[in-house]
């Protein structure tokens, strides 16, 4: 019986925009995350997909309290992180770790691999000094690197190897949940496959929970149990990964799935495609009503005024679209 590791309730992260160099008058608000509620269960891989500007990276930073939430609550294993003091956060960081997108920027170039992996163990006093070397060797082996690599510096490694080191560092504290923010986007396809397999193995062996943020639907379908689709700060669809991607219900998810070129000429050249017009909107000037309505092929008058709630649309599926029952099987108007 699985229990929730992370619970987000109506989380909002808004950034005020100040115009002018001297007077600093208020110029509006960037609603980067605008009311997100999510639960990640123990041992689950939850994928979070969306394009640039949708707020997925800001959501990751908000969960970690690297950026304070403007509203809502973030609860990790029953403990409130929002508004928590330094002591609570230090405890929480043992249980919650992050792997970043850019393997060239996320490792300190002046620290050896050994130093980078030993640091969390020492800071959190997880084991006596005499055991640190053994633990670091274990971590490197866990991610498929030989322990002798500990004496090297990050610049001596390739992107894929650095990402493995970043994963080893995240695992050092034996967290309950790892947030991976586009961990394979900067890597070649063949190396991507190695890192994805690694994540899969770790999740299974260590019963780890993983919040996997990416824009790549093929990757998210492969590795995730459930997937949440974000658009302009809100979740627009949530459900089992394979289901959502094979039978998307929200018009944006349908367009997103359709936009992905499929690596098979016979399929790719004959399939029906839904190509969106226009550009993704700016979170500084969100459209009224449903944020997607200006680009939505199914939009009607009421979509311009009503903000659709994320509601149950089928077994295991939540969709934020007031027309979802009418449009699921028809082609665009």
């Amino acid at each position, binding site marked *: 019986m699985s229990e929730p590791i992370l619970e987000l309730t109506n989380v909002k992260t808004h950034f005020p925009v100040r115009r002018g160099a001297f007077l600093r008058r208020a110029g509006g608000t960037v609603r980067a995350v605008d009311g997100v509620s999510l639960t990640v269960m123990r041992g689950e891989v939850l994928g979070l997909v969306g*394009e*640039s500007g949708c707020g997925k990276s800001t959501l990751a930073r908000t969960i970690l309290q690297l950026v304070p939430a403007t509203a809502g609550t973030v609860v990790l294993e029953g403990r409130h992180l929002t508004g928590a003091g330094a002591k609570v956060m230090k405890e929480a960081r043992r249980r919650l770790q992050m792997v970043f997108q850019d393997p060239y920027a996320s490792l300190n170039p002046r620290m050896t691999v050994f130093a980078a992996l030993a640091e969390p163990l020492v800071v959190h006093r997880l084991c006596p000094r005499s055991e640190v070397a053994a633990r670091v060797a274990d971590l490197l082996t866990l991610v498929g690197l030989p322990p002798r690599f500990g004496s090297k510096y990050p610049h001596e490694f*390739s992107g*894929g190897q650095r990402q493995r080191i970043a994963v080893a560092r995240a695992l050092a504290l034996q967290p309950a949940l790892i947030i991976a923010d586009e961990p394979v986007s900067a890597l*070649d*396809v*063949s*190396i*991507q*496959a*190695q890192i*994805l*397999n690694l994540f*899969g193995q770790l999740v299974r062996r260590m019963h780890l929970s993983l919040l996997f943020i990416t*824009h*790549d*639907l*093929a*990757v998210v*379908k*492969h*590795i995730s149990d459930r997937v949440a689709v974000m658009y302009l700060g809100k979740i627009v669809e949530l459900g089992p*990964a*394979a289901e959502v991607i094979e039978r998307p219900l929200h018009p944006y998810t349908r*367009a*997103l799935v*359709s*936009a*992905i*070129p*499929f*690596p*098979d*000429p*016979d*399929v*790719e*050249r004959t399939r029906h*495609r839904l*190509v*969106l*017009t226009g*550009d*993704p909107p700016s979170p500084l000037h969100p459209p009224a009503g449903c944020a997607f309505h200006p680009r939505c092929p199914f939009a009607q008058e009421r979509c311009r005024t009503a903000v659709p709630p994320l509601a149950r649309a089928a077994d295991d599926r939540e969709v934020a679209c007031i027309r979802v029952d009418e449009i699921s099987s028809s082609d665009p108007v």
Partner: protein
Amino acid sequence: MPTLHRRPSSPPSLKCSPEAFLLPFPSSLTPFLPSFSLPVPLLEINDLRTWFHLRDGIHRAVDGISFALEKGEIVGLVGESGSGKSVTGLSLMSLVSQPPGRIEGGSAVFSGVDLLRCPAAEARAIRGRRIAMIFQDPMTSLNPYLRVSEQVIEPLIIHERISRAGALRRAVRMLEAVGLDDPARRLHQYPHEFSGGMRQRVMIAMALITGPELLIADEPTTALDVTVQAQILDLIHRLQRETGMAVIFITHDLGVVSGLCDRVLVMYAGRIVERGDVRDIFRQPRHPYTRALLRSSPALQPKGVELATIPGLPPDLARLPAGCAFAPRCEVATELCRGRDPALQEVAPGHATACLRVQAGAI
């Protein structure tokens, strides 16, 4: 949407087959002879080698590639980082910094002119006018200090005798042709006022305004969101159909190649390892590297199954192994593979591979 200004192709094609002049038959019988004109490839590359002379050694970024591109063809140049695909495009455009790069050898004949050996003035007349290139990152490829108008008319001012007013009129039509709304107003804006997808459209407008016969597109959609990528790929496809230009599309994305390209060249460690029609490459890949790439693609693998991976790393281009460059990572390599340097050889009509074992019919 207006169709694009298209320069007439040169040289003019022959009106009758060359053979008619050689045979001693009376002219009344020539209609009975099969008449065909040999198609001259638009671009013929032969043994192109571009090496970088760096402190730690000579990096053989492109190490002997040969292929022919027909008029109006869309060819995909596929490979991972370090495969040499971008350097190939840059070499054709004389954009490789020399030093430390150097075109060590080979030829690239475009419409009778060897791009690698012609005088600089001739290269300048071709580059930007008859061959155009678009790049990956539209954020850094446009000059942030100049209005879009100045950048889009620049190729016209340089290559054609045209007034500024005339050039601006053509620029507005071009922006409309690439799908930008309100083109007359947009023309006078700065790049930072455009989104990524729109900047890429501006770059495509700049590239195509002179009506080139060949477009080299170096990962033009990699930095874009997937829904915007779909729009840009559609745009390139439509423009190609309207103008009949040839396209060399450089990418690592097999999905993009499936949708857009007629033929595919797979590159590894500076060489072409497989070449063929797009359907043949995907249905029956004939090189272990191509097969491994397809097997490691999450889109093609069932959920839950571990992805096939290619062990190890791409080779150091300054220290290439003897024999086949892929052998150290190849699961079916034999001693022969490690000893002999394979050449690209046709194993089926239009389908070539640089794998000794496939050439021998073993796999």
